[in-house]
């Protein structure tokens, strides 16, 4: 036993020595996840007030982070349709990475919203027993759950052939697990007998099921279902805000549309950033066809940023002439949140990265594309925060203690526990992506393999 432990420890130390950067990265992420765990336990033991304390601004940074991450995931779902549904070969080679990123972003995004809820344990029960079909949240939750299931199936179909290859090369229990995951013949292992006893073998190895699974049209069908559910869920997410008639900044048919466009540009930015950072961290050179695609995607991203900027300008200009929206529009343009709007939403999210991406694509600079994408992601986070929190800060009532005193606005700043939880969930997402990148076959394949 002792010898076994010694052997295991030595192997771990050797692995750490071999790639120290990787293990430092994992340790940092693990530390943040522990802090988030502490914040969560403290909120359960003490009060939920330590996470979100404001009565006037009940949807705060957690909801902003949820919106940001889930919209990124939905954008990736739309981008995946270019390869999976519309058959673009150069996007098809990135399918595995896109689908895996979409899966993890939406999964961790939903974690944000579950922890924001007061009673998350009741959601599954009552949304199933007594859903409210007039509520956008009910539709959004159901559609994202369906989307997650479909994306898991889509990802499994994409990596099934790789799992089969790995199972054939592996031995022992690894071979059994990989074989089971790829639904391969397990007659040489003990698991086969167990499946037989549980009457699962008849179902899992039914010839008709395998005929369907091997049908070359199936991935396209599944990708189409994922695209439809993903877009529908995203539209309902935009509607959650847009239906709130008593929130002047959110209300109206504009936001479901803007959510779709912003999903596309944040999705592109996330995909570019994740791919470039992954190749740099691995110290590998990108295949030439992938590099070409990166520059093409950078140009598409710049175009989408321009579309997003036009939409934002339209919203603000029309808002100035609409008596109902004039107040909130001026509040964003000139109010207390205006520096963040001009610096982050206009500068960092639209103008600077737009120009940078066009120049980088022309000069073939991968570093420039990475910087532009990261700017879009940071700017989009602030944009979501301004949208969610700013929409609630604009007062429904103008309370002032005296006519000559200024209006009292509800104030909000995230608590330290809230920050711990948010950083922890983001770390969880990064950890899931890192481990997925290490252990799953996400690497881009040339068009001939795809």
């Amino acid at each position, binding site marked *: 036993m002792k010898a076994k432990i010694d052997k295991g420890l030595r192997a771990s130390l050797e692995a750490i020595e071999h790639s120290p950067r990787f293990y430092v990265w994992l340790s940092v992420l693990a530390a943040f996840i522990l802090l988030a765990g502490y914040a969560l336990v403290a909120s359960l033991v003490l009060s939920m007030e330590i996470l979100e304390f404001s009565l006037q601004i009940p949807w705060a940074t957690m909801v902003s982070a949820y919106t940001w991450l889930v919209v990124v995931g939905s954008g990736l779902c739309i981008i995946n349709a270019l390869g999976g549904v519309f058959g673009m070969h150069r996007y098809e080679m990135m399918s595995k990475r896109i689908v895996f990123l979409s899966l993890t972003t939406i999964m961790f995004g939903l974690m944000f919203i579950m922890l924001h809820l007061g009673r998350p344990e009741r959601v599954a029960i009552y949304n199933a027993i007594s859903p409210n079909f007039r509520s956008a949240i009910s539709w959004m939750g159901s559609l994202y759950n369906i989307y997650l299931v479909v994306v898991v199936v889509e990802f499994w179909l994409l990596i099934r052939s790789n799992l089969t290859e790995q199972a054939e090369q592996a031995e022992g229990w690894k071979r059994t697990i990989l074989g089971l995951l790829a639904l391969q013949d397990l007659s040489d292992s003990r698991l086969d007998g167990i499946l037989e006893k549980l009457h699962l073998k008849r179902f899992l190895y039914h010839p008709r099921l395998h005929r369907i699974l091997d049908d070359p049209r199936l991935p396209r069908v599944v990708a189409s279902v994922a695209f439809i559910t993903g877009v529908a869920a995203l539209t309902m997410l935009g509607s959650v805000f847009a239906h709130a008639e008593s929130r002047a900044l959110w209300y109206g048919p*504009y936001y479901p549309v803007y959510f779709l466009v912003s999903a596309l540009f944040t999705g592109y930015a996330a995909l570019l950033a994740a791919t470039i950072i992954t190749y740099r961290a691995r110290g590998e050179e990108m295949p030439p066809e992938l590099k070409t695609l990166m520059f093409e995607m950078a140009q598409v991203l710049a175009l989408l940023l321009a579309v997003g900027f036009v939409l934002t300008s339209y919203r603000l200009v029309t808002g100035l002439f609409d008596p109902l929206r004039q107040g909130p529009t001026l509040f964003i343009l000139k109010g207390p949140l205006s520096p963040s709007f001009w610096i982050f939403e206009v500068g960092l999210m639209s103008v600077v990265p737009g120009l940078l991406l066009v120049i980088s694509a022309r000069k073939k600079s991968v570093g420039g594309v990475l910087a532009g994408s990261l700017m879009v992601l940071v700017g989009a986070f602030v944009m979501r925060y301004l949208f969610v929190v700013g929409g609630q800060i604009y007062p429904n009532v103008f309370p002032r203690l005296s006519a000559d005193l200024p209006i009292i606005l509800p104030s909000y700043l995230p608590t330290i526990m809230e920050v711990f939880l948010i950083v922890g969930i983001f770390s969880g997402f990064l950890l899931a992506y890192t481990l997925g990148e290490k252990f799953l076959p996400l690497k881009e394949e040339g068009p001939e393999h795809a």
Partner: protein
Amino acid sequence: MNKTAKKISRRSVLKLLAGGSISAALGAPTIVFAQSRRYAKLADTFRCIGCKRCMSACQRWNGLEMDRYELITDRNTDLTANSWVVVNLRADSDNRTQRHYQHWACQHCERPACAGVCPVTAITKLPQGPVVINENKCIGCRYCYQACPFKIPRFDFEKRVTRKCHLCYNRTPLLNYMKPACVAACPVGALAFDYRHEIVKEAQRRVRRLKNPSYIMGLSEAGGTDMITILPAKPKNMGLVVAPKKVVNHTLDKIRISASGFAAASVIAGAMYQYSNTDQHRDKEKHEGED
């Protein structure tokens, strides 16, 4: 059989069925409540003396954690998960010399926006009038607060659910002709409770007898509410939330808004199809080059 009688055609039956199912899908309120059997509460700002017995009675009856300081201060107190009713000293912004104590609580809308957005149907409009949150069903998402035109529901950080005034539906249950705790506690008749049409009549009678200018809130705000308040000025001048004079969060409006997203999604799908054609052109050109 009378030959002149109008025949019921198959088409008319189908039309009726289609119309019925569409109206059901649009979410016509599940409870069809008779107007004449619905109760309402009256709050008369001119009669209120600011004793705050309504607040303490509400807190006592509903087992809320009482903050005694709120009962003796004239400072502005906001609704919380444990104060479902508040009384504040307010002045008309146009005439700041006249100040009145004003009773503020859930307005119990006829077509409540909160019930329309609650994802798990934890909020219901009872046939007798009260809008009630089922605390055993609430998931604590706080969407009701965002949708409420008066910004009434408050999140309870201890119980992790949203809470608000339920017009003491559990006290009466409004059928035994018992009044809500706050109305029963009022010593000067500033609060009253009766069938809604009687309350509206009473409010109009009181306003007619007043020499001061006044405003009846609740007749058309948010499509009409089951709490009627007599104010010395318009709600905006009193520093209250101004609700639109129509049903808020109408289901048809929600469909219109979401449809814009689906229309945009179709446009995006079309653009993606066009973009994917560039790929096919490239492949074709490549193959032609190879040939």
